[in-house]
């Protein structure tokens, strides 16, 4: 069987950027957000749009449309759409395509007018959600993530206070990020006292939705030296899928998709789940990061929340109860976008539907330090199943030259959260 290890460090992220603005942007269509992100990221790499010959995108706009709008004819496209992790899955797909010469410069783009809905097709129920969920009042991610969460509470005794601590911790990262949507500190009491949306979630347990675009440029390692900035080598990638309809998830408290993604990424990168100094998990819902830690094997089943207890996962709380090297489980989500700029890991991708997972790791050898982040399920369907782990080398990070994150979800509250 072919071994993905052969692709380790074969390709690099050489450019990353966002749309010109992020937030609430009623004056920009979804397509514009894509185009701004792509042109900015290509410029960041020191390349021209005409150098791009591979386009990767998911969602409502096809890679063919992006090529057309950009005025190029890509010789390789990928439109794999499996939810919010699609874009991070595409990092792996791009690595493989570059390795095999299917393209030389790959751009992964995500644009989403998630908040304002400009230039967005009306979302339509599929035959499954329309028959088996909508008639009972389900609609949107909060009504699916909550199921996972109440089941976890039942099986492991996890408490509302423990979930709230995840929001408190991640907010402390957001306070350091000038582009974060919410930068005021919050307490567990604030989370528990915020408006109830759908038990077990209050408003501060739930992610925000934003208008934004983000793009990443990758090329083969041998070409990276021609780019503007120090490349970030992709050391490991992984993906997996388990379910689309939440009822089909084998175990609500464990994401098989996440496990598969992590296992593959760790193997390709030649590391284990406890070899990380820094872990970034997408915190669409406060139960997401702890359950992802459990599914990745970084925390024991039911113990993921311990990583967030007593400020352990805040910028100043170094420790993790697992034998990692000072693991910091942080998240950078829409609502409180964290340190991504610093960690190129920001190839964030937003999500829509959960069910799949992807993980990737990057490093500039010799690896000095790791940063890893999981971008998960921003689902519109269930959730945990879409996490992605992104592992980056810290040498790029410490150089301070890495571009800002690719984020698409800062900003305000999701439409479903408006009163």
């Amino acid at each position: 069987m072919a071994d993905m290890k052969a692709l380790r460090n074969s390709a690099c992220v050489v450019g990353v950027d966002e749309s010109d603005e992020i937030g609430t942007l009623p004056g920009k269509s979804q397509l514009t957000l894509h185009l701004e992100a792509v042109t900015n990221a290509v410029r960041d790499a020191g390349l021209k749009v005409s150098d791009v010959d591979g386009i990767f995108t998911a969602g409502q706009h096809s890679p063919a449309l992006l090529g057309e709008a950009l005025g190029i004819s890509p010789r390789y496209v990928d439109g794999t759409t499996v939810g919010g992790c699609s874009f991070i899955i595409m990092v792996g797909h791009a690595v493989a395509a570059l390795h095999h010469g299917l393209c030389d410069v790959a751009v992964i783009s995500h644009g989403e007018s998630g908040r304002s809905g400009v230039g967005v097709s009306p979302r339509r129920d599929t035959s499954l959600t329309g028959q088996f969920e909508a008639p009972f009042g389900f609609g949107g991610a909060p009504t699916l993530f909550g199921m996972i969460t109440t089941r976890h509470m039942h099986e492991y005794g996890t408490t509302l206070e423990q979930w709230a601590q995840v929001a408190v911790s991640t907010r402390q990262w957001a306070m350091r990020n000038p582009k974060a949507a919410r930068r005021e500190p919050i307490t567990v009491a604030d989370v528990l006292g915020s408006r109830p949306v759908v038990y077990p979630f209050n408003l501060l347990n739930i992610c925000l939705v934003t208008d934004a675009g983000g793009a990443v440029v990758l090329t083969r390692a041998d070409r990276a030296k021609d780019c503007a900035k120090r490349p970030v080598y992709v050391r490991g990638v992984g993906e997996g899928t388990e379910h689309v309809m939440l009822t089909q998830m084998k175990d609500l408290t464990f994401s098989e998709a996440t496990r598969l993604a992590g296992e593959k990424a760790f193997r390709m990168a030649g590391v284990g789940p406890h070899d990380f100094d820094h872990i970034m998990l997408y915190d669409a819902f406060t139960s997401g990061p702890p359950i992802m830690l459990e599914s990745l094997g970084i925390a024991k089943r039911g113990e993921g929340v311990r990583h967030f207890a007593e400020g352990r996962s805040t910028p100043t709380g170094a420790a993790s109860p697992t034998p990692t090297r000072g693991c910091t489980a942080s998240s950078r989500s829409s609502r409180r976008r964290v340190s991504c700029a610093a960690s190129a890991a920001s190839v964030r991708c937003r999500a829509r539907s959960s069910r799949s997972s992807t993980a990737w790791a990057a490093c500039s050898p010799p690896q000095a330090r790791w940063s890893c982040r999981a971008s998960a399920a921003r689902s519109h369907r269930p959730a945990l199943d879409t996490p992605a782990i992104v592992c980056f080398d810290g040498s790029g990070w410490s150089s301070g030259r890495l571009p800002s994150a690719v984020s698409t979800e800062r900003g305000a509250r999701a439409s479903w959260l408006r009163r």
Partner: protein
Amino acid sequence: MEIDRPLPSPITPEAKPFWDGLREQKLLLPKCKACGHVFFYPRAVCPRCSARDIGWIQASGRGTLHAFEIAYQVFNKAWKIKPPYVLAMVELAEGPRMMSNLVNVEPDPRAIRCDMPVRVVFSKLTDEITLPLFEPAR
């Protein structure tokens, strides 16, 4: 009677026996004739053995509340029922899980617990559509 929730739509051919059964107050589930696996949602191929010979059985209507949520707001424009209401994932005695609502219960987390026994109640919406809802079983 005014319809107070979204009607199931579109009803697909493979799920039609399910909806037809509900009209007669029967909860029908697909069962693989090859391996005996009972599953839900209805589909053309058995998810366990890939056989295509799928029949139907009448479920007992009993199960447990696998997970739940209490909605304090509306998540769907067509939903006219005043919150709070209980969203439920039910694990049927025959094995499969389905989404539904838990009714005839106080919408309070102190009154609801995972794994509590539930039973089906049929809620007629129109001449065509009856929904399977669930209530606590004593």
